C-alpha cells in the first residue's frame, strides 16, 4: 500500500527543530519536561463508540481494570478532551463525524486506534460501507490491534501513549497540520471533492507555525473552490402560542 507519508522523515525534522531551539536557560528545560510529564498523567479521553471494540471500555474504565489510576478519565465534550479513542471499524458516515470531532479538539491531541478494523479493515475488508485504514484520514499515535483487544491491551496501549507523550514522541497532531493536503485528499476521495469542515485548519496551522510545503496543495485548493459564502444562521422557528412569548 502506498503511504506517501512514510517517506517523509517527520520525526527527524522535528528533532532538529527542537534541538536547534535548545533553550539556554536550564530551568526552561526542566520546566518543559515537567509540562510533558503532567500532560501525560492527566488525560481526558473522548471515546467515540464507533464499533464493537467499545464494549471492552466499560470494564477497562470501571473497578476491575480501573483506568482512572493512570489519570485517564472519560470526557464528554471534544473541546476539553485530549485523546480521541476510535473503538473499532468506522463506517463512512461515522468517519465524517470523527473528522469533525477531531478538528474540534484542542491541541495537543492524540488519536488511538483500537481494534484491527482501524488498522486495515479487519473483518470488514470487503465491506462497501466502512473506511478501511484509519491513518489515511487522521494521524494515529497508537494502534491497539486485536479483535477485540482485551482491557489489558487497551491499558497497555494507553501506557505506551503516556510514555510517548512524556518523552515528546507523540506529535501526530502536528502531522495533521503539516500534511493537511494529504489527509484532505484522502477525505475528498471518500466524501466527494466538495467536502468541507467548519474548522479552518490552514489558519490554525499558520497560528501554530506549522505550515510546510505539504500543508497546501491541489486538494486544499478545492476547499476554496467549493467554499460557500458565509450565511447567517438559518433557524426555522415557528410560533404557535403568541400569548406565551
Amino acid at each position: 500500500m502506498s503511504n506517501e507519508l512514510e517517506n517523509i522523515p517527520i520525526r527527524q525534522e522535528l528533532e532538529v527543530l527542537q534541538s536547534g531551539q535548545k533553550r539556554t536557560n536550564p530551568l526552561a528545560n526542566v520546566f518543559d519536561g515537567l509540562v510533558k510529564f503532567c500532560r501525560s498523567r492527566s488525560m481526558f479521553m473522548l471515546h467515540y463508540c464507533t464499533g464493537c471494540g467499545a464494549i471492552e471500555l466499560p470494564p477497562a474504565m470501571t473497578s476491575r481494570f480501573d483506568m482512572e489510576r493512570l489519570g485517564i478519565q472519560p470526557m464528554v465534550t471534544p473541546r476539553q478532551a485530549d485523546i480521541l479513542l476510535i473503538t473499532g471499524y468506522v463506517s463512512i458516515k461515522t468517519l465524517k463525524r470523527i473528522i469533525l470531532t477531531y478538528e474540534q479538539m484542542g491541541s495537543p491531541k492524540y488519536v488511538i486506534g483500537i481494534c484491527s478494523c482501524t488498522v486495515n479493515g479487519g473483518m470488514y475488508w470487503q465491506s462497501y460501507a466502512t473506511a478501511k485504514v484509519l491513518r489515511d484520514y487522521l494521524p494515529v499515535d497508537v494502534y491497539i490491534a486485536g479483535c477485540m483487544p482485551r482491557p489489558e491491551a487497551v491499558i497497555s496501549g494507553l501506557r505506551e501513549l503516556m510514555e510517548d507523550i512524556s518523552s515528546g514522541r507523540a506529535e501526530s497532531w502536528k502531522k495533521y497540520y503539516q500534511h493537511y493536503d494529504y489527509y484532505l485528499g484522502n477525505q475528498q476521495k471518500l466524501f466527494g471533492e466538495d467536502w468541507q469542515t467548519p474548522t479552518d485548519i490552514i489558519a490554525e496551522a499558520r497560528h501554530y507555525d506549522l505550515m510546510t510545503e505539504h500543508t497546501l496543495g491541489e486538494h486544499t485548493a478545492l476547499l476554496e473552490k467549493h467554499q460557500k459564502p458565509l450565511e447567517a444562521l438559518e433557524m426555522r422557528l415557528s410560533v404557535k402560542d403568541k400569548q406565551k412569548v
Partner: protein
Amino acid sequence: MRPENYQAKNHPPSHEFELNFGPNHPGIEGNYAFKVKLNGDTVLSARADGGYLHRGFEKLMEGRLWIQNIALVPRICVPDPVPMEVCYSLAIEELGGLEVPERAQWIRVMQLEMSRLAAHLFAFGGHAATTGMYTTMFWGVADRDLILDRFEELTGGRVYSIYNIPGGVRREVPDGFLERMSSLLDYLESRLPDYDNLFFRNQVFIKRARDVGAMTQEQALKWGVTGPNLRATGLAFDVRRDDPYLVYDQLDFEIPTEPGGDALSRNLVRRSELKQSIRILRQVIERLPSIRGPIRCPIPNPLAWNVPAGESYTRVESSKGELAYYVVSTGGDKPYRVHVRGPSSMHAVQVLENLAVGSRLEDVAQIMFSLDACPPEVDR
C-alpha cells in the same frame, strides 16, 4: 466576533427548536443518533438517525463460506453475541439436516443463559448511569466481568466466543468448570439483594422511571416489540417456552411479567429474569455431567460444504427479544441470502420514536436504555 458578511435575520420568537442527540453523546447507547424537536424540555417529535454502524452484514455473508460466517455473526449484537451464533447454527443445521448431540444442546443452553445474565447486568447498569447512579453501573460491569471470565475459560474468548458451529460446539467443557460456575452463581445470587437495595428499590430510580416511556400491550404488539419489553406490558410470551428450541422444554423456569409497560417495569422484568437465568443454569449444571456423548456431529469438509438447497427460519430468545435468521441456500458453498430479524431494529426505531414524544429531554436516554436496544444490530 461575527463574520463580515453576517446579517442577522429576524425571526418571530418561539419555544420550539431542534436538537441533535448523538451520535457522540454520553446519553445514547453506542453510535446512534436522534433528531428531537423540543418545546422547552418536552419532546415534540423524534426521528431516529441510524446507519453509523452499518457494515452491510447481510451482503458480506453472501460472499463468505457457511463456516466463515460464524465469525461474522456475533458482531451483529455486541453485548449479547451468543444467541447470534446459536441461531445461525440452528438455521444451517435445519438446512443440512444435522442432528445435534444432546450434550452440545445443553452446553449451548448454558452459554445462552450466561450471555443473558451478562447482557442484563450491562443493561440495567447502563440505565442506572443515565439517571446518575454510577455505582450500579460499576457493580454491573464488574459482575459481568466475572461471567466473561467463565466465558473465557469455556470458549477462549471474553466477548466473542465463536464457539458454536453447525453441528455442535467446538470444545469440551474444561475440568472443574461446572464447580466454578456454580460458585459464581452463588455469588451472583447473593448480590441480588444488594442490587435491590442499591437500585431496584431506590426511590431515585423508581420516581424517575415510573410512567416514563410507557406503552400498552396493544401498542407493543402493533409495533413488533418482543422480549423483556413485551413482557413488561403484561404478556407472558417467551420463545423459550412457546416455541422451544434446544432443550428448553426439559427445563423448569418461569416467565416473569410486569403490568406497567414503562421504564420501571422493563427493568424489573430484567431483574426477575436474572433470577430465572440463574435457576436455569443451576439445572444445567446438575444435568450436564450425566449427559454423555459427543459434543458435535460430523460435518462435511467445511471449506467445501455445499449445504442442501432450501430455506430455513429459526428463532431464539435473546436478551433483547426475539432474534431470528432466515437463511436461503441454493446448494452452494455460500449462503444465497441471509436475513437477520433483530429485536432492536424495532425497539430503537419505531418504538423509541413513539415513546419519546411527550417525554422530557432528560428521559430520552432513560427510555433508550430501558428498551435495551443494541445499535449495531439496528444498523447491521
